[in-house]
């Protein structure tokens, strides 16, 4: 009796988990399907699930209207932005976990505030400032403003990873004559390297996927891949295959990254949220 109830429960759990997985993945599969079907095939009823994929639009999109440029811009923004984030957030996280700095409470609240504040409060003043400084529509300008959400997120993650390093290791390095900076670089960083890599990947995914700020602070030269994809959506009714092909190209690298770092992503997301 008991055993039977248990197995019914498990069976239901599997069914629910499976349905949830299908709901999560089917829309992405369908995006791919539409991108590889000619318009006539795409809207056949009933839809064909077995067909010969047509990748021609991928080449067409890549070679047209600056899509490749936007793609390269996004790669540059992510590399520059993530580099800056790690450089700035790592020492900050180290200071928070290792020293009793006065006012850390306020710093924590500031991080939360910076992360919470809706983008347009920052974007319009930065639009004005960037126009004056001549960094409007540049990759560097975008990488700098992205720090407003990247630094809080990275500090939360990195402090939890650095916090896993036993404090005694740092203390003994200090006794051996290392400066605090050397202790961070030689003791903490090697041990927290996987965590830093996970942080880099998560911050990178956030930057790659960012829309609101990129829309407002770029125009043409520094247009990111998301804005390029958004550019196709105006013609949705006519150019579905191009639009979906562009979307697939923008999303595939993120799914690959997520796959590579999946173990740390789960850890990173939970740490970032819980701490």
């Amino acid at each position, binding site marked *: 009796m008991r055993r039977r109830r248990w197995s019914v429960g498990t069976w239901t759990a599997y069914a629910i988990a499976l349905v949830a997985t299908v709901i999560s*993945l089917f829309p992405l599969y369908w995006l791919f399907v539409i991108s590889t079907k000619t318009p006539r095939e795409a809207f056949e009823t009933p839809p064909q699930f077995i067909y010969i994929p047509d990748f021609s639009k991928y080449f067409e999109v890549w070679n047209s209207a600056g899509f490749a440029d936007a793609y390269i811009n996004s790669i540059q923004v992510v590399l520059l932005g993530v580099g800056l984030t790690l450089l700035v957030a790592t020492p900050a996280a180290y200071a928070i976990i290792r020293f009793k700095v006065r006012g850390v409470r306020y710093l924590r609240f500031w991080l939360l505030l910076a992360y919470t504040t809706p983008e347009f409060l920052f974007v319009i003043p930065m639009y004005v400032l960037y126009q004056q400084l001549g960094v409007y529509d540049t990759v560097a300008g975008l990488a700098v403003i992205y720090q407003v959400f990247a630094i809080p997120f990275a500090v939360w993650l990195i402090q939890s990873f650095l916090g896993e390093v036993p404090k005694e290791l740092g203390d003994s390095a200090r006794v051996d004559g290392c400066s605090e900076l050397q202790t961070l670089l030689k003791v903490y960083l090697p041990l927290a390297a996987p965590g830093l890599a996970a942080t880099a990947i998560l911050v990178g995914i956030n930057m790659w996927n960012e829309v609101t700020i990129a829309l407002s602070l770029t125009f043409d030269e520094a247009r990111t891949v*998301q804005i390029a994809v958004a550019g*196709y959506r105006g013609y949705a009714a006519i150019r579905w295959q191009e639009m979906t092909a562009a979307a697939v190209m923008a999303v595939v690298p993120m799914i690959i990254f997520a796959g590579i770092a999946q173990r740390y992503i789960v850890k990173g997301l939970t740490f970032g949220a819980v701490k």
Partner: protein
Amino acid sequence: MTLRARTRLRRGDRGSRFLVPAVVILGLTSIYPTLYSIYMSFFDWNWGLRFNFVGLANYVELATSERFRTALWNTIVFTVSAVSVEFVLGLGLALVMTRVRVGQGMLRTLLLVPLMVSGIIVSVIWKVMLDPTLGVLSYGLQLLGLPRLGFLGDPAMAMGTIVLLDTWWQTAFVFIVLSAAVQALPVEPFEAAEMDGANSWQRFRFLTLPLLKPAILVVLMFRTVDCLKVFAIIYGTTGGGPLTTTESVQILAYRQAFKALDMSGSMTTMVVFSAFALLVLAFYQRLLPSEGEAT
């Protein structure tokens, strides 16, 4: 002052040097623009030569603006609906997954995939799926004998559809955080409760929920502030329409600044709305256990 206190102080001072880069960059990217926005909200500026001090006129105008009230209401409706639905589904899924033994890790990873997609891609995906005449979902509804629905183009359905998009996109965040919290639950209280004859609803109500409370509050806080900021999935689908049925505050601010060139009006909107978001954040902060108690 004891020697120890003095060394601690010195260590503290050295430590603050490590914070300088973060403080400088955060100052530039958050404090500076916030002060600038507040300053500009007392002027009338159209991104051109018109630049007059108007005192509180922008605020008076905002207070009487029906458009702003609609946008604020839309944002609140969206946030409350999306956060509730995502919370219930995410928590349910986290609890269900504890029963799944074989393949749990793989299913968990696959469930995370929507989180790796940008708001624009979410828009593209669902525009394609929900197209009233050509979309696969419309076709599915037809097979079930249901009428064709307008989804994003129907004023009565548009907001619900945006909530649906966000649910597909972000439920995994609730799921993954609560899933970790569920796995960290202690076993003993549950065994004791079962011995005492507590049924599964009682165990959920009086053990699981209270024990998960800190994690639940954190998840709700992050989802709430993210939802208040909603922009990309609306910009990418309806653009705020039909009429203004899906116009969120950030969409309104975008239109004010970049379509109507009412820069100071847009900044006033954002100053007021950010103050509102700050209040919501403060509310969650009060509910959360303070630093000392948190584990």
